[in-house]
């Protein structure tokens, strides 16, 4: 059975390839702790980004050091927002808290929204993947919906939920669910007939088939969907928190903009970027852990 073509280069990123296991010869060499080699390795991966960063900061400093320039240079960011940079977890009162706390609050929201999207996405994807017609009918619709930006969902979800908190979570949910659904469905379609035959001979029921065959067999696809999804849900956080207010990092940016604290916004952007990066790595790591051995056969 041929797979309905999914015309997407972004969402379906193909199966997520765990690193192949390498065989480490145990007794071949005397194990000496190679300090020098390690230092060189670290230097090779750490030094280039640091150098590039320093150059970029320098250029930025030069470009915006004019007092009339529209944006602050790095030196001013450091001068005005130093507390935010150096101590992520201070607490000086209700609204005056470190960005670390704000990130945690936002992460909680993402955890709800994305967690829900992951569960619903895998289940819906599994259902759709079972049927050629469901796939043909729904795939184009999903392909359209997945391109709707997070902000565009805001008014609708407010109108539907009337309350800001569920609306915010809904925005995260609806932004991140599509790649999970689509990739899961493709993964399920790609389960080899052999595995289905094994399940049939053993007379596995639907539930057993779902968690013993379908999920592990489609895991590489599911995880590449989750990886894209977690990125999208973090992208949606600013939009979502414009609604909720409170202490999230997204709302902090909105608030800083309203009171013209540009340097704070810059620091918050760096935080968001770093956390997004770590979320991505975390899902990759989980994926590599779970799909060990699945992709290679």
């Amino acid at each position, binding site marked *: 059975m041929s797979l309905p073509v999914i015309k997407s280069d972004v969402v379906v990123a193909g199966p997520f390839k765990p690193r192949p296991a390498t065989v480490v010869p145990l007794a071949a060499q005397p194990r000496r702790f190679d300090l020098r080699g390690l230092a060189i390795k670290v230097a090779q991966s750490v030094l280039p980004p640091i150098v590039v960063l320093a150059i970029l900061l320098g250029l930025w400093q030069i470009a915006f050091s004019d007092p009339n320039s529209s944006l602050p240079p790095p030196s001013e960011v450091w001068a005005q927002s130093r507390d935010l940079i150096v101590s992520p977890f201070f607490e000086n009162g209700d609204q005056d808290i470190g960005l670390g706390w704000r990130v945690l609050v936002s992460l909680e929201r993402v955890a709800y929204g994305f967690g829900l999207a992951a569960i619903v996405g895998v289940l819906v994807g599994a259902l759709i993947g079972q049927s050629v017609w469901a796939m043909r009918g729904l795939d184009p619709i999903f392909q359209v919906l997945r391109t709707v930006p997070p902000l565009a969902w805001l008014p609708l979800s407010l109108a539907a939920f009337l309350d800001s908190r569920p609306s915010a979570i809904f925005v995260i949910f609806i932004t991140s669910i599509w790649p999970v659904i689509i990739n899961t469905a493709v993964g399920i379609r790609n389960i080899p007939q052999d595995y289905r*035959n094994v399940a049939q001979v053993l007379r596995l029921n639907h539930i057993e088939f779902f968690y013993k065959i379908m999920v592990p067999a489609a895991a590489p696809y599911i995880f590449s969907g989750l990886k894209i999804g977690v990125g999208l849900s973090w992208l949606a956080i600013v939009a979502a928190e414009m609604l909720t207010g409170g202490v999230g990092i997204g709302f902090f940016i909105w608030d800083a903009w309203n009171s013209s604290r540009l340097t704070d916004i810059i620091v918050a952007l760096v935080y968001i970027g770093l956390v997004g990066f770590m979320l991505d790595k975390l899902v990759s790591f989980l994926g590599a852990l779970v799909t060990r051995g699945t992709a290679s056969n």
Partner: protein
Amino acid sequence: MSAYLKLDHIGKTFTRGSASTEVLRDIRLTIDKGEYVSIIGHSGCGKSTLLNLVAGLTQVSQGAVLLENQEVNSPGPDRAVVFQNHSLLPWLTVYENVNLAVSKVFAGRKTKAERHDWIMENLTLVQMAHATDKRPSEISGGMKQRVGIARALAMEPKILLLDEPFGALDALTRAHLQDQMMEIHARLGNTIIMITHDVDEAVLLSDRIVMMTNGPAARIGEVLDVPLPRPRHRIALASDRTYLKCREAVLKFLYERHRFVEAAE
């Protein structure tokens, strides 16, 4: 005595859209309990299709498959299959692959300890007990096939269905596994249907050899009895008159009377 397995005037036609291909026509065969039957025929004649019909993975178009006088038309662990390409689940270890079958088939019938013993017994039978924690990607092709056999045996099937079980292996490994298969058959007395391309393998292992004509609409062309006493030893048989005669009969069928015709496709 009524037959253990009976293929009763089976026909199979695949239809896709308006196009239909008749793959098998009027297959009649009875197999006794404990018999080792090989099916041989040119590539694409419908051997796998026939095996899938017995397994219940494909539905017959005409006729019926009767096992102990009961019609079977859905798959089940009483007809365990060793597939053409082992089809172990790559995310499970050797042990877990067998356990998948054992825990399903013997749920409620064996305790956990008994199930463990049963898994180990079957892995020992195929000499794979040393590699229980390996994943399929970490073992050789011959080992995978042995685990596939262990998984099938562990279901305690009424009939063991082997689809070119040794086809993808090198000659040495194949010979070794053939010997093991004979030993298992002698010990457990299973009823076995094996598909093969290999004339020597068919003669060495089988009680009867079913030779199929070329498709489309393949039939059973001839059934050859192999009256060789067991246990059989490949070296002793190499110059045995009966063995050579059987071998010649199969070769003649395949290469003189039913030469592979490409145009049949």
